[in-house]
């Protein structure tokens, strides 16, 4: 199953939706959830939920889906919809191009808003390794990403490690280039450390804070590094 299929699985994330209390709350309650809180650029997202009042679904109620995308300056409406007779709703095929906060608002129902749903959008990445002969292998990476930020080239650092070892050696530093807005490419030619090897490419593009989890918004290593477990 591809990422698209996985992304469309209508599985709700427990604890993310506004849970209904044991005793029915007073007034309408709008609960919403997303299929996944992290997806790849280009993958559609589904936002699902329900609008209830006193535990009873409110049908045919108009809704808006609002998004606050990085750098998070405020919510804007990105889709309109309405609830099913049961009170449930489904915004499918939502396309996000960078980290975004989502919420659903019930129109005409004063202050009925879902909780805010944070969604992390990772760049879409394709790696490529092709042997050019003894001692020469071309490594390349192509990323599809948000067009936020400028397109200035940045350094791509290439590390290689023989399979079964733990040390990645810095093999090359190259510059990225933007093939078109939102598509970055980098490549290098290295001498493989062994017949079968693992490589990593690391970069700090101008758009990195707009995409991916905060944990990866750190500078790339600039020299050899060791990983805890054998690679490959």
């Amino acid at each position, binding site marked *: *199953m591809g*990422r698209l299929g*996985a992304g469309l*699985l209508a*599985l*709700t*994330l*427990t*604890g993310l939706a506004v849970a209904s209390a044991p005793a029915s709350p007073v007034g309408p309650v709008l609960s919403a959830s997303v*299929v*996944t*809180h*992290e997806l*790849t650029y280009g993958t559609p997202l589904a936002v699902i939920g329900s609008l209830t009042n006193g535990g009873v679904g409110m049908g045919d109620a108009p809704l808006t889906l609002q998004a606050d995308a990085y750098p998070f300056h405020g919510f804007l409406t990105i889709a309109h919809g309405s609830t099913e007779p049961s009170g449930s709703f489904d915004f499918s095929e939502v396309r996000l191009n960078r980290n975004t906060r989502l919420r659903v608002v019930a129109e005409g129902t004063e202050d009925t808003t879902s909780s805010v749903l944070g969604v992390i959008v990772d760049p*879409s*990445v*394709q*790696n*490529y*390794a092709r*042997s050019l*002969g*003894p*001692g*020469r*292998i071309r*490594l390349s*990476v*192509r990323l599809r990403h948000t067009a936020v930020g400028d397109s200035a080239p940045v350094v791509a650092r290439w590390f290689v490690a023989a*399979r079964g070892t733990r040390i990645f*050696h*810095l093999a090359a530093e190259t510059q990225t280039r933007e093939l078109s807005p939102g598509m970055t490419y980098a490549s290098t*030619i290295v*001498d*493989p*450390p*062994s*017949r*079968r*090897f*693992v*490589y*990593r*490419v*690391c*970069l*700090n*593009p101008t758009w*990195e804070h707009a995409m*991916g*989890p905060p*944990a*990866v*918004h*750190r*500078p*790339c*290593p600039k020299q050899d590094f060791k*990983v805890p477990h054998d690679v*490959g």
Partner: protein
Amino acid sequence: MWAEHPRWTARLPALLAACAVLAALRVPTARALEYQGEGQGIPVAAFPSAGAIASAKSFLNSRAGHTSFAVLDSQGHLSGLRVHEHFQTASVVKVMMLVAYLQMLDARHRGLGAADTSLLYPMIHVSDNNAASAVLAIVGSGALERVARESGMTDYAPGVGWWAYTQTSAADQARFFFALERLIPPRFYGYARWLLSGIEPSQSWGIPPVARPRWQVFFKTGALPSEGLFNEVGRLERPGVTFTIAVFTSSEPSMAYGEQTIQGVATALLAHAR
């Protein structure tokens, strides 16, 4: 063919199996925006070989004077003899000046003009000292220190009284020449290679006569004859293989002897080149 990003490939089963548990989706290993893949290729042995380096060590130990050499082999491993011994750079520091000057132009978004080449060309091509002094006055000693830092030098110290007295080591210079491609702004890299591969024949002693034409040689010699000091640093390239050599000598009996010392090291290192 393009392969899917393995991070995702690895993550997908977890996504399907554990998507009800948000914490289980996070990949804990990513430390930066980094992507991993696997490749298959045919590795070549590091060049020069361990045997060639041992032979060069043996040769250098047989020579008079104070000597050292360092090699950064084609896989980036450092070896040699007395690699961190301090020497005066003499004119080999002019390559650091060249890099600093080109970095300055790049930082100011300037191209190479006639005024620039009228300094850089003689400084490298005929090792003109006046041009070097002018370049250093323009870039400043801080720029040389930055170049030293960026290339990972550990034995660098500014010259006292004259730039030719800059302190360095064979290890530092071998690292520096290995890093030239990274240190020189891309738009000026071709010009720098042209300069460093076209040095005036009378100053092309030591490594080039041994290595050419099998290798492309980018190099700089340096000499303080009054101190019997003769140095040379070279970057040798052919398709798929790049390595650097730095040979430093002092208290050599004569210039001819110093040149022969450097040439002998290069001969030993290249003896088994395929």
